[in-house]
């Protein structure tokens, strides 16, 4: 087994009920449609399909 002492340590993927997907930690975000690659350490991905700022949550899920 390889050791776990690498960058991927500490990534938490959290599904917020009736809300977005919260992702924190060290990860690589790739958006294929918008051709974007980034390493944000915290991000909220829309799960409701209605955000006007895809792929991110813009609170439209509350409406």
């Amino acid at each position, binding site marked *: *087994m*390889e050791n*776990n002492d*690498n*960058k*991927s*340590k500490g*990534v*938490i*993927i*959290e*599904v917020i*009920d009736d809300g977005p*997907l919260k*992702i924190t*930690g*060290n*990860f*690589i*975000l*790739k*958006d*294929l*449609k*918008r051709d974007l690659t980034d390493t944000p350490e915290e*991000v909220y*991905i*829309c*799960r*409701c*399909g*209605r*955000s006007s700022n*895809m*792929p991110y949550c813009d609170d439209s899920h509350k409406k």
Partner: protein
Amino acid sequence: MESDKNKFSGGRKYSNKEITVYWKPDACVHASYCYRELIEVFDPGRRPWVDLNGAVTDRIIEVVNMCPTEALTWKWNDESKNGNVSIDQTNHINFRRPELVGQKEPEIADNPVTVKIMTDGPVVIKGDFRFKYSNNDKEMKDGIISLCRCGQSGHQPFCDGTHRKIGFEDI
């Protein structure tokens, strides 16, 4: 839980006595031939989703050859047989994944978590991470999950393919 020995660069591999099948999730366009033709072997609802004990080798090869991309490819375990494979074996690695030919799969040194926003589809997360949903809290080792972004999956929080039916576009 799948063991690390199934890993190779870009995906996973599965073997029976005769062949090894490589799965490269990035390349999948969801043409769905694999599970429509051979659910005993390719069952997206099972973990691991590929079980090469589910059918005879000839049939597995036939279905892997139907995959329109290099998402599924195969090779003989007996390397001497991989030299002269006929061209109608469309998904043999010789034709689809030349980078794997003759390769002892290298270990993936660094394995960062990737979060991929699929075009008009789910978000696919790969690697080692902690996954919290409803009342679950799981440590995923070399995990892959595909979560719904369209809001309409019947199997929340996971994508079940509904985004295609409803023509989801994440503008």
